[in-house]
């Protein structure tokens, strides 16, 4: 009898007093959790693929930059898409500000994906041939994180001012419940530069043959460094980085058909970095639906800016059966349907960066700047004769105008105006008088922090005017 009691007591004791960790430590079988998401290097590669995919966030930069600037107007068939944004009637909420607050969530989603994968790179199991790739994917992720922070800084902070306290929060570790405050702009810029520099240092040299425009490498990181240096107004650095890209020779400027076919994915000329879309037509449908509804059209101002001999006029702008103009970039595809890649960085931008930097740097080099500009124009305009510039201001104006024409709908115009403290000036044929111009002092140049962020995060400070 005693034995029975003893056994019972033991059983009870086991149940009650041992915290039987194993019995209670159950893991899901149907989804990955922190414990088993990244175990092998193959998993890491999948995480990295996911991060590259999330740079699709750049599509929204393209959309917003067009809607807020003078390169677009509401299309003939517009049923409201982007209308509030175009009319500067947006605020920080989801209803009116859906377009302008989107980058906040999507760039931080990219940053979080990077931060989730990074800690596992060193520890996952890998095959011998994968071993060297640990450093490579780490560098790729760092580069993406730097670029994402730049996307945020450009949209949600004022024109670059190192002392300004309202940068964006820097996220270096994954923390879903973080409630961070904003870092200063110089802190954010330092982090961006560090990430990119560290990434570049860890990556192997690239040759014309080994260059790929679908992953981060030494050359296209330099392209982003050039873009960011220009934004920071560090012109010498901008010249250095853009020269590095141009001199690498991986993607020379092209003209004629070779240029036109960039946009239909017949070739990969000029492109330094792209987000690939295997089946999605999401880039082109930002402007024109697959059914042909023109939601966002090129502005009359943009159309008028092209010389008749300019190949970009027809390459970038199309006319549909109803006689309405539409954005021809990202419209047709050799892959069928409207499936084209997002071109996030091209070599022509490097020439324009360098030209602008030459004009703006302490000791301007107008000849060198003019040379870059003329080279680009001669590739675009049939029968072009080189132009010379008497003053820096003239060259700068010309470069900005050229960026307007060359990089239309690629996510630059609005931010070019912002960093040069220029107003948006639309033609009256493009816009109602109420939203025809946006003075350079307008608070709308700094996009609103989403309302949900302010509700969720007590440490967040809203931008002026929202």
């Amino acid at each position, binding site marked *: 009898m005693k034995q029975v009691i003893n056994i019972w007591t033991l059983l009870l004791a086991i149940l009650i007093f041992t915290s039987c960790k194993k019995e209670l430590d159950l893991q899901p079988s149907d989804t990955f959790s922190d414990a088993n998401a990244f175990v092998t290097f193959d998993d890491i590669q999948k995480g990295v693929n996911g991060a590259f995919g999330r740079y699709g966030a750049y599509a929204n930069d393209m959309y917003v930059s067009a809607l807020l600037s003078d390169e677009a107007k509401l299309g003939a068939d517009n049923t409201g898409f982007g209308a509030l944004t175009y009319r500067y009637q947006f605020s920080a909420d989801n209803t009116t500000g859906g377009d302008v607050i989107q980058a906040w969530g999507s760039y931080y989603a990219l940053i979080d*994906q990077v931060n989730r994968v990074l800690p596992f790179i060193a520890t996952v199991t890998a095959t011998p041939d994968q071993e060297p790739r640990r450093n490579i994917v780490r560098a790729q992720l760092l580069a993406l994180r730097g670029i994402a922070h730049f996307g945020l800084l450009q949209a949600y902070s004022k024109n670059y001012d190192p002392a300004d306290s309202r940068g964006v929060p820097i996220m270096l570790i994954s923390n879903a419940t973080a409630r961070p405050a904003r870092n200063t702009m110089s802190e954010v810029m330092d982090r961006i530069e560090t990430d990119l520099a560290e990434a570049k240092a860890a990556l192997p040299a690239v040759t014309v043959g080994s260059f790929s425009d679908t992953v981060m490498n030494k050359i296209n990181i330099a392209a982003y460094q050039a873009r960011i240096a220009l934004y920071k107004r560090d012109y010498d650095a901008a010249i250095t980085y853009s020269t590095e890209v141009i001199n690498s020779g991986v993607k020379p400027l092209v003209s004629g058909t070779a240029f036109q076919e960039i946009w239909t994915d017949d070739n990969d000329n000029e492109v330094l970095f792209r987000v690939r879309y295997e089946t999605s037509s999401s880039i082109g449908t930002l402007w024109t639906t697959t059914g042909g509804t023109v939601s966002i059209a090129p502005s009359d101002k943009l159309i008028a800016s092209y010389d008749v001999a300019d190949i970009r006029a027809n390459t970038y702008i199309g006319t549909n059966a109803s006689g309405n103009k539409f954005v021809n970039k990202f419209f047709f595809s050799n892959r069928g349907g409207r499936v084209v890649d997002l071109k996030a960085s091209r070599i022509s931008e490097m020439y324009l960066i360098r030209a602008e930097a030459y004009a703006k740097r302490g000791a301007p080099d107008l000849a060198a700047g003019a040379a870059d500009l003329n080279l680009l124009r001669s590739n675009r305009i049939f029968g072009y004769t080189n132009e010379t510039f008497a003053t820096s201001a003239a060259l700068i104006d010309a470069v900005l105008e050229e960026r307007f024409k060359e990089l239309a709908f690629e996510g630059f115009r609005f931010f070019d105006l912002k960093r040069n403290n220029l107003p948006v000036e639309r033609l009256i044929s493009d816009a109602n008088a109420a939203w025809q111009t946006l003075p350079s002092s307008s608070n709308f140049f700094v996009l609103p922090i989403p309302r949900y962020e302010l509700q969720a995060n007590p440490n967040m400070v809203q931008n002026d005017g929202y």
Partner: protein
Amino acid sequence: MRKLCLMLSAIFLLLLNTMAQTRTVTGKVTDEKGAPIPNVSVLVRGTTNGTTTATDGSYSITLPANAKELQFTSLSYDPVTVTIGNKTSISVSMAAAGTKELGEVVVTGISRVKKSEYTGATTKIGEGQIKNVPVGSFDQILQGKVPGISVLSSSGAPGTSATIIIRGTGSIQGSNDPLYVVDGIPVEAGVFQGLNPNDFASIDVIRDAAGAALYGSRGSAGVIVITTKKGTAGKMKFGYSAQMGVKSRPEFSFRPMNTTELLKAQFDYGRVSGSNDNNANIPGWYYSTQNPRYATLSPADQASAQQALDSLSKINTNWGDEIFRQANFSNHQISLSGGSGKTRLYSSLGLYNEEGTTLRTDMKRISFRNNIDYVDDKFSYSVNSNIGYTKRNFQQSTVTNSLANPFLTSAVNVPYARLRKDDGTFATGVAPSNSAANQLELTELDENYNTQVKATLGLNFNYKINKYFGLGLVTGVDFRETQGTNYGNRLAFSRSNPNVTNPTTRAGFQRETFSRFLTADVRPSIYFRKSVSDKHDIDIAVYGEYVKEAAKDFNFTGYGSDPKRPNTPATIIQGNAANQLFANVGGRKAETSLLSGLITAKYTYKGKYTLSGSFRDDGSSKLPENNRWQTFYSVGAVWEASKEDFIKNISAINVLRIKLSYGGSGNANNFPASDGTFFTGAYPYQPQYSGGTYSGLETIIATYPGNNDMKWESTFVTNLGIDFELLNRRLYGDINLYNKTTKDLFVQNALSGVGGFGDFPIDVNAGELSNKGFEWNINAEVIRKQDFVWTLFANGGYNKNKVISLGGVNSFELGTEKVTEGLPLGSHIEVGWAGVDAATGQPLYYTKEGLITNVYSSDDAVQTWGTSEAPWRGGFGTSVRFKGFDLSVLFSWQRGATKVDNLEYFMENPVGFLGNGYNQSSDLVFWQKPGDIVNTPSPLYGTNFSSKIIHDASFMRLREVSLSYTIPKSMLQNVKYLSNARLYVQGNNLFMWTKWRGRDPEGGAANINLSEYPNPRGVTAGLEITF
């Protein structure tokens, strides 16, 4: 099992013959009113020596020398045990089960406590109130019978479980299902069609903390404890009961227009709107001679227009008659109950068959229960087992606003359409006018049903070590496997018509789903009980518990089934690039575990004062490691005031008992899950990553952030209760007051986008919710005579629900409601309706400031429309027993709830529906000319959702009426073998009093009625005989 029992019985019978018999005791068994009770089993306790009472209640039994106690048991009465001593005459009075506080024992599922020593609030429903209610899911039986709980039948589809909320909603994000326990083993909530309620001896509904805290992390929504029948001691009795009847459609307040009315309405619509002259969907205007279009037609076309209108006028299909039917109901049961010596058994086989009131809906069940009990001086052991097999047929849709839903389509399909063509086939075609025929064609050609096997098995073992100590072990499983089949015949118009191009739609489909759910529970215990000189009673028990739940499901959908061999997976066509008929396959699995320790203690002094408490430590796999173990406790006290000398002398007071308890419990069983299933609720704290692709490359991306601070929502209840029996027990019942607070309430908190999930709400433990209220349960025996007893009873409760705090999180919307601090849950948010402008026919709304405007803006939505959860609800009724006749009447009601009537939006909406060729309510009166004072705007203006369609959902139902006749023993004496016979007729849901205009105020979700299956009326008759 049966064989073993027979063998055991035989052995005991042999033993019986060898026993010495020495003396005889006689007596009479009567009920509380003094009426004799025949057929009571009288047994010498601990032996097989027994007899039964005669018609006049008398008995005579010969006792062995060592006989100590006599046990009196009868199916319809509470058992009584009497010490024999040296008496030679023992007469007892037995209390009827269910009509009064059944027994004096509260069954908590973990312990059994004398009612006089239980510190909380419970209600016991006895067998008499459970059996023969013609529903497939037992929980529906509780409506109007238990104070303080809301029982709503959200669907009249046979076998659907009810929505039960005990003492107000205690969780916003999680579910509010009580914990269900059958014979000590927890069972899956909401899946009861496999259980036969006629096997239930009692249901204890535990609403307080003293009971809920015993279940720790699982008890916060209350506990419903089912005790199934045990064998009655004595010779084996064979019982048969049969019940048959019909169920029919309930009254329906919206009467759809007939052809004449609708053509007239269309005429008015076209005339007033002025822009629908070419709208062929409204033939009443389209073909009218007054339509300006008419004048432009050629004489021939004019004639054919006239003809078209004439021929339409001759059709008048009542779609309600086509989709509803008179449904048959039958329920048969045979049972075997008896015992000899130390072993008793109860065995029953039930056959249940209920048709639904709409076509292709029904439920069939075969259930088989075997309960075996063994008791001796030291050991007790019981096995309770049940296996139920059910098959339920379903319509394609009876919930959503879809034209595949017969309850919607029969209301809005035009009456001038035919069901069948001249050749007898369905008059299918393009919606709107053919949608009802399309629906009925699908009803005939398709199949949608599931079969379910549910098995519950519980073992209960007890061993008394000595006078004070004992050991217990409860262990069991609840197992359920459901197989669902959904067959879509490719010949149906909706799949075969030329507009359908999708190859998988054209091919028809066969979908099979399999799901399995298992709960296993092991609960060992040690207890200590001691009485010191009849003054001090001490009762301490220590329990351990391990509960494992595991679920898995699997499904596939294949295409191309051959209509000549319908409804079999065998004819699925394998997919390939040419036919594109790729099958879809899916599935998932999850498991959870719970590990606990529990200590309970009770001390009673002189039967007057009781103190009790419990302490439980629960560890659960659902919580993150840092919060995994959480403790719950309760304390309580009872003062048996009527045992005090100063009350003892007041003759009007028989019993007066005051009870106070406080304690806490958690919502482990109702943890929020993103899709409401066990699967997503199993690991809610864990971040999740999913696989995907980027440009054809595989990816792993984070898809759910997890919340590593998750813990239970904890509900704390203070309960003050009074039990009373007054005026020679003519007036008895109980009253309870409670204050229930849910802390760490899950509320939706938007994450900072910086964390990577954008505008993503996660559930965080931040809010606080309060439910306060009182409950009454009062019974009065107005007349108490030997042959005539008349009882009145009323129970009910008031509950005030209020969101105390959202913990800094913003007010958030849920469906048609918004969760706002200071308001009750279920508070609708809607723009105020200000009627129709008599001058212009424009719809008018109220702005937030209360001004009338003709501009609708969702920003003007306010929360002054009441709440969807009724604060008042209850039941009342009467029972009359006259000689062999019993009449009982039960009304159930709820009051103070408001609900959105979505059907009204469809049926009184000229622009959205009348103008698009749908039928309308015959009540529709819309604005036609200046000066019209009506509530439906001119056809020139559409309407938005507004408070116009929020209505009072209060109701009172005549829930149950039953009249039975028990054939007197004197008549049965001449019938060999028959010992008891009873006949009855019963009506269910016969009438409803309500201002609600839609199908059924109980239907669907609490906040909104779509077009749900209304609860049927039932009329049944039955008989019960015992051999």
